[in-house]
């Protein structure tokens, strides 16, 4: 079987795999014939693994992520979570979007509650509220439970976005350049928030980023994609830093510049 062959290549045992993309293909029909965005894309992500995906703009990273989220139909191959193929979107895959995408007319708490209500529909109101408050607390928004999303800064809104994604306790967390629209100072803060909450929850995460430093700091493994059309996985790099990590320790580590050079070399060729 095809997928077993690929498993053997990667050397992951079946029971270890959380997310499996096999022979994934995406085609957009155009008047001039089919445009193949992704082809023969194979990727396995282990349980409790954090991977980051880097590649040039327009190479199909976001397409791939929205296919995993179930928002974009698959043209060929398949995606499975814990061995079950996905059918459309679902709360087993949480998404943090590029823009915070909060409902601006709701409070921070209500925005988180929107998903929690759905997933923990049998819990009491108090329990649900406690879950929301716990995660909002974790992302540093203790004082802003009842502020409307429209009143929050971009960085604060993305914090709510993180809380919303974690609060529904997904099996896989998908992050589509979540900090791309923020200034570098806020981006650093939010990376810390994200990694802190992730260290506790250890949810399998797939994150797209343009930022090489971010990719190294957050990931267990950096996946490099070739430029489109017909994009696929070009190379992978395992980041062997111990967790929990601090930014300072990572930057001062001997291997840091080696990793960095490797990634930049890939992107420049």
């Amino acid at each position, binding site marked *: 079987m095809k997928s077993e062959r690929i498993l053997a290549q990667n050397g992951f045992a079946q029971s270890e795999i959380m997310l499996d993309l096999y022979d994934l293909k995406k085609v957009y029909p155009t008047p001039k014939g089919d445009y193949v965005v992704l082809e023969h894309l194979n990727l396995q992500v282990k349980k409790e693994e954090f991977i980051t995906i880097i590649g040039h703009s327009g190479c199909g990273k976001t397409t791939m992520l929205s296919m995993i*989220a*179930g*928002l974009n139909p698959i043209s060929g191959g398949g995606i499975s979570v814990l061995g079950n193929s996905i059918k*459309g*979107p*679902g*709360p087993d*895959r*949480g*998404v943090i*979007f590029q*823009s915070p*995408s909060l*409902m*601006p*007319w*709701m409070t921070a708490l209500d925005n988180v509650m*929107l*998903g929690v209500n*759905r997933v923990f529909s049998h819990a009491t109101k108090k329990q649900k509220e406690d879950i929301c408050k716990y995660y909002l607390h974790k992302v540093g928004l203790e004082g802003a439970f009842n502020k*409307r999303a*429209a009143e929050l800064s971009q960085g604060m809104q993305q914090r709510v976005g993180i809380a919303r994604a974690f609060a*529904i306790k997904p099996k896989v967390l998908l992050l589509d350049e979540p900090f791309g629209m923020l200034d570098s100072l806020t981006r650093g803060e939010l990376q810390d928030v994200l990694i802190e909450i992730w260290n506790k929850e250890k949810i399998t995460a797939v994150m797209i980023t343009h930022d090489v430093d971010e990719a190294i700091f957050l990931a267990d493994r950096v996946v490099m994609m070739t430029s489109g059309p017909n994009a696929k996985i070009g190379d992978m790099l395992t980041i062997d830093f111990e967790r929990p990590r601090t930014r300072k320790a990572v930057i001062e580590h001997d291997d840091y510049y080696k990793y960095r050079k490797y990634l930049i070399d890939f992107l420049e060729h």
Partner: protein
Amino acid sequence: MSDKLIKITRFVGLGFFEPVIRLSRGEESKKNTILILKKIVAPLASILLFLGVWQAGSQALYNIEADSRIEKAFNGQGQAAAAEMRICIESGDVSCQPNTLPSPAQVYGAFKTLLKDHKVINADKKRFKEKTAILNKQRTSEGKNPIVYTGRPSFVDQIITSIKTVFAGFLLAIFIAVPIGVVIGLSSTLRSSFNWLIQILKPVSPVVWLLLVFMVVKTLTKDSNTDSSFIISFVSVGLCAMWATVVNTAMGVSTVDKDFINVAKVLKLSAFQKVFKVILPSSLPLIFTGLRITFSVAWMVLIAIELLAQSPGLGSFVWEEFQNGANDSNSKIIVAMFVIGIIGFLLDRLMLIIQTFVSFSKNEGI
């Protein structure tokens, strides 16, 4: 304290009072004086200009009419009759007044007459009520209908009836148009299948709507002997005015931010939650724009519909005065015109206030 006052004046659309408040507190006197000139003195000057043009115009029309009367008398009955006519017109006698555009002073006079008339009718009503109170009590205990006042309605009563009709029509429009707009907005299939109907019905004239409603309501109320003119007029008003809301709601619902829809999909919200928690709130601003247009259209067509449907209200007031042809009828029509305009403006302001209250992008509350 006066910061709050400024906020309130801004909120209700009286922002032009802001420099007065600021000046009275001694803030930036030069800037605020200029603002007062611009926002209060200039509009007042334009009002005076308007009144001046009106006065001159009505004077000119009066002279044309008077001259033609004198000439007519001269041609018909000779010199003596012409001189008599001239004296009659100059004396201000009611019987030979030229019938033309009334001057501002005449209109103001008619306004006062109407108010006085309202007081008289009100007093009359009160007296009637007192007189019949005991008798009515007796009649109701016997199971008979109480005797009600059937005298002539005053001008203020007409205004109130018109406002009632417009609100009834507006509510009907909301209850029909918003659900239709939401359903059509949600489904592109329905949108394209019903688009022709909306596009054809939208430009239909109020008069035709009235006749259509008349046909239907007449048949439906065949057995009851209640007055159906109110039903006919408010239903026609609602049907005429609702199209802006249908179109705007459908547009708002169909163009909800794609990010919000994605969130709803990822969280697997139920269809009910998706509509009520995501789609409706985010299309509220556009829905309200539609409702505001609907409201102003409703007020505009109301007058024409009342006029035709013979249902009580400002429209029939105008029509009756025109048919009446009394000496001050023209002035009363102009009074009604201003009242209609001012009430329309106030109603639009009311809608604007509600709109700023419910839309999420603006800062809310005072």
